[in-house]
């Protein structure tokens, strides 16, 4: 493996739990040949070497303060391809639950009384700060999908991140649907790609991979209501990882109901 020919890649982390970087490290267990295919020039969690010369930047975590914004722009300026790695970078993830912190508490924090209910935090997915070329969803990312995406990038094709609902993969696993077990699940509107791992392990899907591009939300909300969820509970279902994209919708619904 020649040092020079391999595309240089770098990993960066922002506000997150670093579980996605860990998953990248774990993917080496089954794919040690990844190290032969790319040259990793920055990966703070795992290495001390550092270089600013890279083709692909994998970014984990959300942007949550002004300094992050600068760093993101710096990375964008150097990388040809920016990949948002995991829910925090892709969607804002659990960090965006901060938008729920009630007004009084929010006031006592940074923004003073200027901030409205939802504008308190400035947690943002990477794509809201700099252009993102590719996202690899999930909280955490799926190892297999990560490897498949890297290969696709190296081949110059679109990463194989599906745009259909999770139920597709769940059915292929032959799981008894959670709805038939007195439970609820966000599978019908959630982007597949994880192999329906949560339903397979008996837990409902919480949309950590974000929604499909064209979800039937009104039918989904009716379905949840039919299974006994209140409007608030439906909103909770929609927000665990997706508060950022739902914040306007929530504000609207909240102002209607609040």
């Amino acid at each position, binding site marked *: 493996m020649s040092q020079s020919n391999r595309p240089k890649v770098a990993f960066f982390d922002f506000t997150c739990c670093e579980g996605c970087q860990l998953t990248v490290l774990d993917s080496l267990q089954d794919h040690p040949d990844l190290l032969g295919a790319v040259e990793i020039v920055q990966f703070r969690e795992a290495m001390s070497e550092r270089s600013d010369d890279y083709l692909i930047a994998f970014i984990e975590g959300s942007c949550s303060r002004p300094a992050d914004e600068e760093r993101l722009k710096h990375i964008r300026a150097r990388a040809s391809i920016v990949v948002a790695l995991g829910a925090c970078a892709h969607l804002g993830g659990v960090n965006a639950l901060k938008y729920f912190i009630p007004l009084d508490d929010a006031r006592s924090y940074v923004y003073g009384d200027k901030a409205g209910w939802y504008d308190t935090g400035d947690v943002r997915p990477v794509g809201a700060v700099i252009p993102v070329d590719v996202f690899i969803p999930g909280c955490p990312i799926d190892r297999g999908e990560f490897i498949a995406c890297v290969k696709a990038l190296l*081949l*110059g*094709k*679109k990463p194989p991140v599906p745009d259909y609902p999770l139920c597709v993969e769940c059915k292929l696993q032959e799981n008894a649907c959670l709805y038939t077990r007195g439970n609820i699940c966000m599978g019908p509107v959630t982007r597949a790609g994880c192999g329906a791992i949560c339903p397979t392990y008996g837990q409902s899907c919480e949309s950590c991979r974000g929604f499909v591009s064209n979800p039937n939300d009104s039918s989904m909300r009716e379905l949840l209501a039919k299974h006994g969820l209140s409007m608030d509970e439906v909103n909770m279902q929609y927000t665990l990882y997706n508060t950022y994209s739902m914040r306007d919708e929530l504000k609207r619904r909240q102002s209607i109901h609040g």
Partner: protein
Amino acid sequence: MIAPAIPQTQSGRTLVNDEIFVPEIGRVEKIEPLTALEKVFTIELPQGKSLNHRPGQFLEISALGVGEAPISISSSPSRSNGFVELCVRKVGDVTSALHRLRPGDKVGIRGPFGRGFPIENFRGKDILFAPGGLGLAPLRSVINQVLDERAHFGRVIILYGARAPAELLFKDELRQWEARGDVELHLTVDRGDEHWKGHIGVITTLFKDISVYPRNTVAVTIGPPVMYRFVLMELLGTGISEGNIWLSLERRMKCGIGKCGHCQINNVYTCQSGPSFSYKEIKGLEEAL
């Protein structure tokens, strides 16, 4: 129901294997850029194989590792002899990978698939070709076939529209056709530029320049879905019968052999019964146009 093509499965004759998904490997002989987005590939077929195709048929072309895409055969049967020409527009994964190829590289080929145009039935008739944009790529194989057997056909009228002068395909060949004297060639572009002296307007605006004898005319039109509605209106307006208006439908295709379901229009598999259809055949099909 529209009859599907009869499979030509005798190995050795075409590039359809008994192992139906396994492509034959061809070699890129020559690559000519036509526009910013389109390139023409001349591909040498594997030893001893010939396409034996009809104009209007297509191949499934593989960039191994990236995928496969249906691409029309752009060269006419009359000019094949061991090579095939494909005109590819770069729009996505496979087509971009094809654009990255260099002479000498390998491509996977399966086919030909589809029914093609019943060109023998066109003999003795006037022929009106109306390609739009990339539609000239497949239509070129019909046009050249007709021109190579010129004596068997009546008038040959070509109405060709592109969005801009820079997007006109096969410009050299257009000039040759024009120079022949036995082809009525009318070009138009949606938007001109400082060098463009010709007609400006969508393809339908060319119809007023021509008159056809509808009872003895066959029309063949290929273009993007939006174009068909308007061109069909014009063609029907000339009085050409529905059975003599031919077009080629684009659909997503994943197998080329009538199994994968993507190209299905009602009960018709475009890849097998088409992609060329007469208007008469498809006008009753929901979702065809």
